[in-house]
Each structure stands twice: as structure tokens, then as C-alpha cells.
């Protein structure tokens, strides 16, 4: 760290210096490591996000619609009616995305399942198989199929209420899962058939299929196994969105999940976190356009994920064209991620940074017991309390969606549309094709190219 002396010797201070220090730290870390850096959390890039678009509530011009109080607003969501006999029925259009048992502790997975069930929504397994507790406590469980096939069993698969085939994740598109050796405990190792303590780097291509045609055949197999009962959805990182979504729809899937670059992860190489994929906002818009061009909008459901923090973000995603949203990082934070628990945690001592700055998910040293396999740390997460926190958070999101829907003069959250939104800056306007606030409104038919 001799470079510190050099930095201190410089006369500059303030804004630019902070970035310089981060840069120096990054370069020096690599000079010692000799490889790329891996970390958890999500991107640190500043990109267009939900704050850059705004709802324009209707007040006097609301006369044509029978006003609904927030309490009357409907939020129930049905996903998967394209081919599945039993679509997912959720009380709210927000569910908890797939996070692996392995990346997360058993307590965290159980709490998420219980919390989601309390809020009447779904949870999803992840790259590492199903935890029996997860099934027992969740009301709707999406069974995830990753390229690695870790912990995958047809016996568990038929217990799922939906199946998700993961093409990639927004946080690390086109690479497989990463589970650092510190987190591959005896139990995890057994479940994934790995030697304990060894870094697990999952493959990125699936064994059964290479392209969309094979994927179509594979999905048919999955339908046979599950007797055409449950929906099959495909999760795609937001990159070449239009082409990818069209191909996904062509495979015969019931739904598509589009995962933006702001999505979180337990471990990813930094270059992919920060430099791959497009933001969630244009991701949703392009995905919707792709489905519209195929005439499949409303038939193939669209789930948006990547950086959704609250009910307003979720409502904006729905207004832009999503049928539901999935949360990951937000759900983790509701479990007390990055929160100092007096008398229990000591972030500075345990991970070297204050609460609020921790990105140590990949190390297994999670002070609050979420992303760890260390039994001592895991005990800090009290499952039932944590489940209540998750449920409260999900309910607050739903509540927010009700309020904004009511303010916009609509009775069902799924009635939100692009004519309820405007962009606050040029980038957001260009990326979403929404009008800039104050500029000409698009026509009622929603001509996005204004």
C-alpha cells in the first residue's frame, strides 16, 4: 500500500479523488492476485434505472374510470396460462427469485420460503437443488434448472409449481454459477456431488440443448415429466433482448424472465457484473416489444428482475410491460443483509468493512447468516423472525403498488401501462421510448416512438 503515500502527496481532493482511490485499489489488488476479481452484490456502475421514469397520476382527468381506493385495487397475478394446466396464482406480482442453497444458508432459504408463503407469493430454488424445507414451507415454488444440474432430481422437479430454465443471469451473463470453496461445506458438497472446500464453477451451456430448437424439445420433455401441469419459464440475461426473447417464446415456454444488468449475485467476476448486459429498464421494453411483434404479448408472460427495490419500481416494471417482477437482492436485504445487529454482529471485525459496505457474499463470512454455510454465523438468522421480515417487506411492496394504481385511476395493478409513465432524462426516454416529461404525450394507442 505504498501508493497511499503517493495519493496523499497529491494536492487534489474531493470528487475525482475518490474514484482515483478506488481505481488504485483495484489495480493493486489485481497486481497481487494475478487474476480477475470476484465479488458478491451487484454492479457499481451508475446506469439508467427506475428512478429515471416517473408516474403521472390522474386527478381531474380521471372521470371515465370508477375510482378505486388503494384497498380495492387488485394485485392477484396468474402466470402460465399459455400451455400449463395449473398456472401459478399469486396474491401479488412480486416473487422471490432463484438463489441457491449453497450461496445462501438453509436458514435464509427457509425464511424466504416462509416469508413468500405468508405474502401469498412464490419462491424459487436455485443452482443447487431443492431444500426439503423450501418445499414444505412455500406455497408456490418454482423449480430452477441450471446448466450445472447440481442437486437436480426429477423427484423434486415434479414437486415444483413451475419450472425455470436458466439461460443466464443478469449479474453474470453467459457464465455459470460460482461457489467459492469457503462455502462448499460437507452438506453442500454432498448435495452437489463435489469435494468439500473446492471452488465450484458451473458450466454455462446446458447438457441437453445447445440452441433454441433443442431447448424446445427439452421443454417438451419437462412438460411430459410434469404432465403439462406446471408453467415452464426461461430466464434470460438482458443482452440481445429482442432476439433472445423471440427465440425463448418460440421454444414454447409459458413465460420469459428478463434479468437486467443491475441484478445481484452471491459471486461473480467483477468484469461481468459491471460491464455486461443492459439495464433492466430497456430490457423490459425490448422484451415487451419482442412479444408484441410475435403477437404473443399477454400470452407469454414476462417477468422483470434486476435492481427492483420497492413497490414503485415493481409498478413501473409492470407499466412498461412486465406481468410480474422477481426480487433477489431486496429480499436478501430484508433478511438484514448489511445491517449491524447490536450484540450479535461486528462487521468491521468480521468482514473488515462497516455494515452498508459489505460485498463479501462469496466468502461465506456473512455476519448476518444469510450467505454462509458456517453454522455459528447461520444461527444469527432466526428463521421465523426473518420470515416475518420478508413477508412485511413483500406486503409493503404490494401496498405501494395499490396506492400508485389507485392514484392513476385504475383498479388492477395489471392495468398500468406505458401511458402512465414519462421519462425524466434523455437517456431514459431514448431507452424506454417514453416521452420526456413535459413533452408531447404519445397517442392513446401508445406510440412509443415519439
Amino acid at each position: 500500500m505504498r501508493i497511499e503515500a503517493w495519493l496523499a502527496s497529491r494536492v487534489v481532493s474531493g470528487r475525482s479523488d475518490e474514484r482515483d482511490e478506488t481505481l488504485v485499489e483495484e489495480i493493486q489488488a489485481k497486481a497481487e492476485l494475478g487474476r480477475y476479481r470476484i465479488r458478491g452484490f451487484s454492479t457499481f456502475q451508475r446506469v439508467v434505472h427506475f428512478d429515471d421514469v416517473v408516474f403521472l397520476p390522474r386527478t381531474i382527468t380521471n372521470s371515465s374510470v370508477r375510482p378505486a381506493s388503494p384497498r380495492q385495487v387488485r394485485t392477484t397475478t396468474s402466470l402460465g396460462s399459455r400451455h400449463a394446466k395449473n398456472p401459478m396464482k399469486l396474491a401479488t406480482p412480486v416473487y422471490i427469485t432463484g438463489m441457491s442453497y449453497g450461496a445462501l444458508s438453509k436458514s435464509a432459504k427457509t425464511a424466504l420460503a416462509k416469508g413468500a408463503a405468508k405474502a401469498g407469493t412464490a419462491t424459487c430454488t436455485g443452482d443447487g437443488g431443492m431444500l426439503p424445507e423450501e418445499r414444505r414451507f412455500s406455497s408456490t415454488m418454482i423449480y430452477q434448472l441450471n446448466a450445472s444440474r447440481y442437486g437436480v432430481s426429477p423427484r423434486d422437479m415434479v414437486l415444483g409449481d413451475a419450472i425455470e430454465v436458466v439461460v443466464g443471469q443478469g449479474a453474470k451473463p453467459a457464465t455459470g454459477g460460482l461457489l467459492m470453496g469457503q462455502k462448499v461445506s460437507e452438506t453442500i458438497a454432498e448435495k452437489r456431488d463435489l469435494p468439500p472446500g473446492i471452488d465450484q464453477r458451473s458450466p454455462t451451456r446446458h447438457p441437453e440443448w445447445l440452441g433454441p430448437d433443442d431447448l424446445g424439445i427439452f421443454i417438451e420433455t419437462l412438460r411430459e415429466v410434469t404432465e403439462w401441469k406446471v408453467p415452464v419459464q426461461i430466464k434470460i440475461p438482458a443482452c440481445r433482448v429482442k432476439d433472445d426473447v423471440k427465440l425463448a417464446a418460440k421454444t414454447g415456454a409459458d413465460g420469459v424472465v428478463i434479468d437486467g444488468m443491475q441484478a445481484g449475485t452471491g459471486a461473480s467476476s467483477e468484469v461481468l457484473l459491471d460491464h455486461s448486459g443492459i439495464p433492466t429498464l430497456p430490457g423490459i421494453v425490448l422484451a415487451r416489444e419482442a412479444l408484441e411483434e410475435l403477437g404473443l404479448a399477454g400470452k407469454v408472460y414476462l417477468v422483470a428482475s434486476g435492481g427492483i427495490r420497492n413497490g414503485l419500481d415493481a409498478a413501473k416494471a409492470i407499466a412498461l410491460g412486465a406481468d410480474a417482477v422477481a426480487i433477489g437482492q431486496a429480499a436478501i436485504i430484508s433478511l438484514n443483509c448489511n445491517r449491524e445487529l447490536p450484540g450479535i454482529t461486528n462487521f468491521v471485525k468480521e468482514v473488515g468493512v462497516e455494515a452498508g459496505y459489505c460485498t463479501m457474499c462469496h466468502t461465506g463470512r456473512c455476519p448476518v447468516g444469510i450467505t454462509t454455510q458456517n453454522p455459528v454465523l447461520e444461527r444469527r438468522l432466526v428463521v421465523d423472525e426473518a420470515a416475518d421480515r420478508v413477508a412485511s417487506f413483500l406486503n409493503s411492496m404490494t401496498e405501494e403498488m395499490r396506492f400508485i394504481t389507485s392514484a392513476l385511476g385504475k383498479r388492477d395493478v395489471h392495468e398500468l401501462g406505458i401511458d402512465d409513465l414519462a421519462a425524466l432524462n434523455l437517456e431514459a426516454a431514448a431507452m424506454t421510448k417514453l416521452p420526456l416529461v413535459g413533452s408531447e404525450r404519445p397517442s392513446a394507442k401508445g406510440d412509443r416512438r415519439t
Partner: protein
Amino acid sequence: MDSIYSHSQIWIPETIRDIHTRSDGGYMLSGFRPFYDFPTFDELVFLASGLTRFPLEGYKEKSKTKTVIGSRSSSKPLVIETPVYVASRADLSADLRAALALGSALAQTALSVGGSLHPGERKVKALIHEIPSGARTQPSSTGKADALQINVSNGTSVDSLARFIRTVREKQEYRGPCLVSFPAGRVRDDTRAAVRAGADAVVLKGLETRAALSIEDSMRFNRMPIIAAISEAREALRENRVLGEVQIIAATGIRNGADAAKALALGADAVAISDSALIASGYDSPLKMPSAAPRRAGRDDVGIAAERVAKYITSMTMEIALLSRSLGKGNVHSLEFEDLASLTIEASRMTGVRLAGD
């Protein structure tokens, strides 16, 4: 610095300090760039494979990084193992120069440096010797260098540059490539001129430059960002039908493998790192002038510093290959324009890369 002006857009603490320092008779040091913001590689992202393309697997499938510079007219082009090489400087201390040279050798890549050569610099895998375009005497190092880089200064005409290149090639039977370097001002015109004068490659220097120590230094900030420069140079090569024949080297603003990969996708064939290599070396005061730099490093320190530089280059190479595989490319030089999206309207207009969502 606490100041009532801290929140002002114009009178930021840096500006105030700058004026104070100047009025004290000094000149201010500014880190990696001017104090203001301008578009960087961070405003571009890669569009990794999904269902449209197949990614390559990390541990089974390679993305080649071998890089060739100067294949247009030289019979002995530069062949290096990674598209990242080190740009050293004559004004660094001897130890630091030795460390950068050894580091580049360990990383199997090139080193560019001007002035008289340090003994360590003769042992690198590929030595690019920098000479000013106005040099009247022919460089004595021509025979030892694997490539020559002509640093074009103000007032160099195409004819004199062409004459210079011809003289080096013919009279000295020089067989290596001739690189032409210029500040990124009128990049399109200058690239065409360099091509006409017989350059094998152009080395672009944008405004992401090292610290300014003097008024002369600060003139470096009168350039365009490197992302725009690469794009202009690529267009010039395309217009002259020498795209792929004449190489583009991005010599500023490269901080990590992602920057390098984006430079390649925009049209560069290689990137040169200087400030970041100095930081990687771990030395105290890379920006001090040699006379002021205490000669305290022993031989071992040079070795350690060299290893750090090499490791840093390796990390960058791995990052480039990682991104390249995520795009399904078996060779990092197959990265292309269509692999990128812009996150801002400025970056999109400057580079021609489509805005995300467009």
C-alpha cells in the same frame, strides 16, 4: 477541502486549489484525468450470449489472445501473447523502468519507451522504441528495436513523415513495423495521413492522460476521449480500405480488462497501459521526476515490482478472455462493434454504438 464553494459546479475544490497553487508559482497535479467528467469505457456494456449465440465454457474452451501488430508492410511484425502492452517513459527512475521492462517480459508482451535505452529494456519480448518525428539524426536504436514508434509533433507534414519512414526502412534496412503516434485531436484526418505516410499502426492518445506537472503537460487535456478516438480511427481505416491491415492501438484510458476488451470491440487491435502499470508496480512515487526520485529500491524490489506488473497484465488478459468467451468468441480479436451497447446518448453518438434499448 472544506469550502463554501464545495457544491458549486464551476468552483469545485480542485479548481480553487489549482488557482492557489498557480498563484504560489507552482502547477497542480491532477491524477488520471482532468477534473471534469467525460465519457469513458464505463458507458459501454457488452451484450453477452443468451439464446442467440453460444457462450464458450470457462475451463474447456480458450479465447485466443495472441496479437500481431504491423503486418501491413513489415516482414517482421510484432507478435505478442496478449493485446495489452506496457508504455514506459524515459522520465521514470531507472528501477521503475527496469521493473516495467521485466514485467512486460514476464507477461510475454511488448514495451514501448523513448530516449536512450535502459539495459533491462533490451531484454523484453518486443521492444517498441519511441522516436520524435522531428529527429534529424537517425535513431541508433533502430537495429535493436522490434518496432519503431514515431511520435508525431506539431507541424509534421505527411511528406516529411513519409520521407522519415522511408529513410528508416530503406537506408537502415529496417524490417520491423513503424507505428505512428499522435494526440487524439483530428483523429480521422491524422489517421488517413499516417496511413498515407506508410504507418503500419496508429497509436492513439486521448485525454485520459497522466498527471499534469506543467502547463505543457496540461495541453494533453485538449484531446478527445479515447472511445471517440478509436471510433474515428476505425472509420478512417475503413474509408482507406486498410481496416484490418493497419492496426489501431489505444494508449490512454485503459484501467482494466473490460476497458481493453471494449477498445478491441470498438476497433483497436491492442492497448497500451502506462499509469496503471506504474500503480501496479507498487512504487512510491511514479510521478516524480527521476532527479527527485530517491534510488532506494534494490534488485529484489525490481523483481517484485516486475512480478506485480506481470500479474496485473495477466489479470487484464484473463478479463478480456472472460468477456470474449461470454460473447462466444474463440479469439479476442473477434470482438466487434455489434457486441456493445451504449448506456448514454453521448457515448452512443461518439462511438456509433447503439444505445441500450434502441
